[in-house]
């Protein structure tokens, strides 16, 4: 090895050592970019699994599902979940354009979550409805102890066979720069078939 090669090796070693010495300061100053930022919203059946969701519903009988949120937004977030109820002609949220459903919320939950934290709760609900011929009218939804007038009507679904309604949950996230809640383009639902009185 000649002197020039040795000099280069020596300088590189010194720079390497210098970077090792600087690394604690760099760790304090440099913030590495975090991964993808997103929120999760899920709904599970009464056995706490993604199965056995209530479908064939009787009047005034209590049903249970689990609703959950998970925060992967790299910070403290403020969530609002709207509970909405629709018949087959009412609008659903537009997942492509990120537009929530026009329907008035029946109930809401407010949740604060730190990064990588989860929230989950049992949702109990029952319905009061009437079936007359080919028409089913849902007059009341009792959810988590709140008795709410819904007044939804649907006709007999010839194709699928049943009186179908949908209970769905929209996730909203507080945006401090707006400042207001914005729809997070996430919603989950269960189909319900009002069967017997």
């Amino acid at each position: 090895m000649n002197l020039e090669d040795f000099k280069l090796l020596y300088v590189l070693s010194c720079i390497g050592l210098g970077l090792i010495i600087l690394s604690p300061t760099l760790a304090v100053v440099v913030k590495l970019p975090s991964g993808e930022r997103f929120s999760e919203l899920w709904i599970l059946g009464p056995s706490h699994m993604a199965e056995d969701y209530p479908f064939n519903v009787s009047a005034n009988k209590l049903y249970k599902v689990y609703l959950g949120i998970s925060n992967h937004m790299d910070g403290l977030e403020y969530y609002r979940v709207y509970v909405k109820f629709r018949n087959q002609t009412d609008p659903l949220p537009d997942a492509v354009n990120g537009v929530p459903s026009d329907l008035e919320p029946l109930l809401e939950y407010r949740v604060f979550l730190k990064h990588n934290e989860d929230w989950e709760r049992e949702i109990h609900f029952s319905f009061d409805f009437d079936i007359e011929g080919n028409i089913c009218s849902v007059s009341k939804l009792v959810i988590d102890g709140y008795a709410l007038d819904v007044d939804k009507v649907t006709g007999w679904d010839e194709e699928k066979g049943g009186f179908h309604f949908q209970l769905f949950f929209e996730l909203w996230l507080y945006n401090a720069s707006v400042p207001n809640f914005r729809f997070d383009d996430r919603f989950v639902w269960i189909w319900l078939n009002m069967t017997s009185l």
Partner: protein
Amino acid sequence: MVKRKSFVCFMFILMFFWFAHVCFAVDKAAVDGALIDAESDLVSAYVVVGEAEKAGANVSELLVKLRFAGTLLAQAYNTNRTGDYDKAYSFAINCSESVDGTADEALGLKLEAEKAYSGRLFMTGAVSTVALSVLFVLSLFGWRFWKNRYYKRVLEMKPKVERAE
């Protein structure tokens, strides 16, 4: 006569309760106002707690308060939807009260966290600067040492010239 007096007394009590109910009942406008205030209080607290958390402060206790207030606010909106304005108003007021002072506490924690961060940055910066200076000086001496040693070894390898006899 006694019967008449009792009847008047009964009617008076009935009227009293009715007036009391009318006077102290909460109307929709009052509930809406309380809900707006509660929402604003909660959001203000949340924004500062979020900033404190970003600055590295431990906001666990404040988060408990936020969660409690959030539950109250949701209950306020939910009872308002059922038309129970008294309860809705009460929940909204409780929500505002439960986050009272939270923003100030969070601001204090944020300032502390920022101070701690500055201190840590200064300390590691100072230690790194001293260590880099020492490395620089030592590397110069080191280079001289290795260079001399290199020359010495090269000179030792120089072929010796002996006088021919």
